C-alpha cells in the first residue's frame, strides 16, 4: 500500500521553521493532490501547504501551534484507512525518506539531534529552564502561552507560577496559540504595563476596563520592524504635487482593452510603479543599503509593494522590476496582491526588496510619512488623486492632482537627492505617453 509522507517543504532562503496555524483536513478525511492540507505561519508569511498526493489523511504528526522544521514529518497520506494501523509504527526519520541511511553517518545523526525530540516540540522552542519545563509538563501548560520576564524573554519559575491559565480560555486563545509560538520579539517593542483587576476579575489599566488580546505574530513582527527602523534610520520626508492628467487619460483610454486582454482591472498603481522604476534607474542612490561605511548599490530593482491584510500588512516584492514593461509590472502586481489576500505567498515572494512603495491613497489619504522598510533606504508614499483647481498654463483649470512623498534615510540620501528623484518621478508621470500594453 502506498503511503506518502507530508514533510515541511523548504519555503525560501533562510526559512527553516514554521508554526502550524491550522489543519484544514482531519485525520481520516479524503484529500486530493494539491488541495490545501494545512496552514503554516513563518517569520515572513502565512501560507498553505498542499497535499502532495491523493488519498486518506491517515495520521497528523504535528499539532496546531507546534513549531516544525524543514523536512520534519507533518502527516501521512495513504490509499485507504486500512493503512492506519501500519502507520502507527515509528515514522521513518525525514532524512531516511530522502535516501540517506539512518544515523550511520555523523551528518544524519547531527541532523536528527537538531530536531525537537520531545513530543511538546513547541515547548522546546521557547526559552525557559529545566524547572519550568517540569512544572509545565506536570500542569499541562503550553509554554507558548506563557510570557517570560527573564533575560531575553526567558520564562522563569515565577512566570509559570504566575501564569493565569484562565487567560487561555478566552476566545482569543486560538489566535494567541497559533500566532505567537514564542515571545521572541525583544522587550523594547512591548514594554509591559501595570494593570490591576477589579473584584469581578476585569482587567483595568489606569482604572479603565480593558480586554486583552494577544498580538498576532505578524503584528509583533511589524511592531519590531517599525521600532527598529525608526531607531536605525534618520527619516526625512519630501512631498511633491503631481498633475496626473496624462495618466488618467491613458488609463481611461486603455482600461477596457486591458481588462479584455489580461482578465484583471488596470489600476493606477502599475503606472506609479513604472514611473518609480524609471526614476530609480536615473537616481540609483534610492536603491541602496548602508553597510557600515559602505553604500551597497543594488543591481536589481525589486519593488516592495505594501498590501493591507485583514489584521496587518505584507510587502510582496516585484523582482527585477527594472526589466519589466508597464503591463509586466501590472501582471506581477496583480498576481502578488491576489496571493497575498489568499495567504498563498511564499516566503521568497516577500524577500529581497530594494525599494518600497506604499499607497494609502486608496483609502483617501492625501499624503503620508511612511517608515522605511529596512535595510532599504527609501520608501515612496502615494496619495489619492483629487480633482483640484490649479493654475495651469496661466489659467485656472481643474486637473487631477496627486501628492507623492519620498521618505528617505538621511544617512545615505540628502534633501537634494530625494527631491531630484521625486522630481524625476513627477516628470515621468506628467509627460507619460507610452501605451500600457
Amino acid at each position: 500500500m502506498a503511503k506518502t509522507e507530508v514533510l515541511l517543504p523548504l519555503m525560501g532562503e533562510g526559512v527553516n521553521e514554521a508554526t502550524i496555524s491550522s489543519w484544514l483536513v482531519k485525520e481520516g478525511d479524503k484529500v486530493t493532490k494539491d488541495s490545501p492540507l494545512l496552514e503554516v505561519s513563518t517569520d515572513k508569511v502565512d501560507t498553505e501547504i498542499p497535499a502532495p498526493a491523493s488519498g486518506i489523511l491517515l495520521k497528523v504528526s504535528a499539532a496546531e501551534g507546534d513549531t516544525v522544521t524543514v523536512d520534519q514529518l507533518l502527516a501521512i497520506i495513504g490509499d485507504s484507512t486500512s493503512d492506519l494501523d501500519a502507520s502507527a509504527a515509528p515514522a521513518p526519520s525525514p532524512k531516511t525518506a530522502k535516501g540517506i541511511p539512518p544515523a550511520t553517518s555523523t551528518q544524519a545523526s547531527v541532523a536528527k539531534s537538531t530536531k525537537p525530540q520531545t513530543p511538546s516540540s513547541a515547548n522546546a522552542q521557547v526559552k525557559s529552564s529545566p524547572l519550568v519545563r517540569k512544572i509545565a509538563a506536570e500542569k499541562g501548560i503550553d509554554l507558548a502561552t506563557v510570557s517570560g520576564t527573564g533575560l531575553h524573554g526567558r520564562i522563569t519559575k515565577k512566570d509559570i507560577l504566575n501564569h493565569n491559565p484562565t487567560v487561555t480560555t478566552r476566545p482569543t486563545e486560538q489566535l494567541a496559540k497559533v500566532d505567537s509560538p514564542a515571545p521572541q520579539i525583544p522587550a523594547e517593542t512591548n514594554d509591559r504595563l501595570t494593570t490591576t483587576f477589579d473584584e469581578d476579575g476585569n482587567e483595568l489599566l489606569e482604572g479603565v476596563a480593558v480586554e486583552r488580546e494577544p498580538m498576532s505574530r505578524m503584528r509583533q513582527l511589524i511592531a519590531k520592524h517599525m521600532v527598529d527602523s525608526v531607531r536605525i534610520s534618520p527619516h526625512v520626508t519630501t512631498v511633491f504635487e503631481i498633475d496626473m492628467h496624462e495618466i488618467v487619460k491613458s488609463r481611461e483610454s486603455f482600461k477596457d482593452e486591458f481588462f479584455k486582454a489580461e482578465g484583471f482591472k488596470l489600476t493606477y498603481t502599475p503606472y506609479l510603479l513604472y514611473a518609480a522604476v524609471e526614476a530609480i534607474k536615473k537616481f540609483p542612490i534610492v536603491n541602496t543599503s548602508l553597510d557600515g561605511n559602505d553604500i551597497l548599490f543594488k543591481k536589481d530593482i525589486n519593488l516592495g509593494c505594501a498590501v493591507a491584510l485583514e489584521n496587518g500588512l505584507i510587502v510582496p516584492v516585484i523582482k527585477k522590476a527594472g526589466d519589466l514593461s508597464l503591463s509586466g509590472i501590472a501582471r506581477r502586481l496583480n498576481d502578488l496582491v491576489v496571493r497575498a489576500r489568499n495567504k498563498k505567498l511564499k516566503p521568497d515572494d516577500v524577500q529581497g526588496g530594494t525599494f518600497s512603495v506604499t499607497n494609502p491613497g486608496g483609502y483617501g489619504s492625501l499624503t503620508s510619512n511612511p517608515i522605511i522598510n529596512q535595510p532599504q533606504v527609501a520608501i515612496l508614499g502615494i496619495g489619492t488623486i483629487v480633482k483640484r483647481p490649479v493654475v495651469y498654463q496661466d489659467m485656472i483649470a481643474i486637473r487631477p492632482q496627486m501628492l507623492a512623498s519620498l521618505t528617505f534615510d538621511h544617512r545615505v540620501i540628502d534633501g537634494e537627492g530625494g527631491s531630484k528623484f521625486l522630481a524625476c518621478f513627477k516628470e515621468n508621470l506628467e509627460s507619460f505617453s507610452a501605451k500600457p500594453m
Partner: protein
Amino acid sequence: MAKDYDLVVIGAGPGGEVGAIRAAQLGLKVALIEKREHLGGTCLNVGCIPTKALLASAKTWYKLQNAEEMGFTTGDISYNWDKIQARKDKIVDQQRKGLRFLMKKNKIDTYEGHGRFVSKNTISIESKAGKKETINTKNVLIATGSRVRELPFAKSNGKNIQTSDHILSIEEVPKTLAVIGGGVVGTEFASMFARMGSKVTIIELAPQILPSEDGEVVKEMVRNLKKQKITISTGTKLKGLKDDGKKVIVSCEGIDDQNFDKVLLSIGRAPVTDDLGLEKIGVSVDKGGFIPVDEHYKTKAAGIYAIGDIIATPALAHTASAEAHHAVEVIAGHKPQTINYDANPNAIYTYPEVASIGMTEETCKEKGVDYKVGKFPFAPMAKAKIEDAAMGFVKIIFEPKHNEILGVHIIGATATEMIAEFALGKILETTVDEIAMTVHPHPTISETIQEAAHDALGGAIHM
C-alpha cells in the same frame, strides 16, 4: 565652580567601585568619594583580602608541618610572622594600585574625604584636614558599607581587646585568644590563629556557631575545629572584659572567669548610615540603621540609590558588587534583571572551607517546605585523597516533585570554588537531574557534586 556629575558614588568598597566603573562604561560622568586613604573598602583593606592572605599562609604552614606524609623530610621548620604580614600587605597594596589604575582608566574622579548630602544634587566632601568642597550630581549611589559592631559593655581598645580591623595587623601570634562571636569572621580568625599555634576559645551567644549555616555542616565544622584544639562555648553570654595591660579577663555567665593574651570581638557589623546627611534628602533609616530601598535599590529620594551593607540584604562583597552593577544600569536607563537572592552564594574560608547557597534543612522545616536530601562525602573520591582533603561532603536539598534545587551546602577543600556551579544552576533554574547529567572532570573533587546529585535521584555510584 563646583563640578557637575551624572553620578556620585559615596564609598569605594566592592560595591561603590564596581558601580563607579560600570557607570563610566555606560557613559556617565562619575565621581567616587572615599573616606579612607585607600580605595577598596572593608573588603580590600580590613576584610576579605587581607584575611584570606593570612589564611593562605596558615594553610601553607599546616602543609609544611604535615609534609612528612607527602614524602618530605623538612627538619626544623618555623615561620616569620613579620614576613607573613608583609606578604599580606603587599597583596593588599597591589590590589589598591590596581583599583587606582581602573579609576584612571575609566576617567572616574576620586575624592578623598567624608561625603555628605547638602541636597539631593549637591554633595559636600570634607577632607581629613578639614578642607571642604562641594560637587553637583544628577544621581547618587550610597555605598558606605559597614563598620565593626561594638558592645556597649565590652569595648575594644586596640591593645589586648581587638576587632577584626586591629587583629589583621597584629604583631605576633597570641598564645591564647578568645574569640567573642562565632560568626563567619570570628570562626575564620579562630581557624587561622589555631593553625598558627594559638590556643583559641570561641564564645558564642547562640546555640551554634555559624548560626545561618546548615546544622549538619556546622556539626562537621565543630568536630573539625575541636580536632584543631579550639574550645567552643556556645549558648554563652559575655558579661564583661577587663584588660589589665598584660592579659584580658573574660567574664561569662555561668562559667569561671578566664585569662587570655588577646580577645577578638567579632559580634557582627553595623551599617554606616549615621553621618551622611540623609535627613537633608528626606531619607530615614530603619531600626537596624539600614536604608530602605526597592528592588532596583532606589531610595525614597529620586535619583538616590543605596546598595551593599547599608541595605537589609546579605552583607557580602559580591552581593554589594551585584547590587551596584544593577543600580547603575538602572540609572543609565537600562533594564537589568532583578537580583535573585536565592542564588546568592556564601563562602567561609575556615579550615575546612564552607560554602552554601539557598535554604538550609532547618529553614525548610521551619517554613514547612517539602524537601529531600542528596549527599555525598569527599572520602571515597580519589582526588580528595590525593589532595589530602578527604574530609567534607556535598549536600543538596531539593524539592522532590520537580527536583528543584532549594539549597546546597558544601564543607571541605575547594568548597568556595565549587559553589559557583550552583550559583549558575540556581540562576538557570537547574534541577538535580541536570546536575547529575553534567559530566564532571575526573579526577576532581567536583565529582562529589555529581555523586550527591546521583544520590538525590537514588543511585550514587561510588558508595
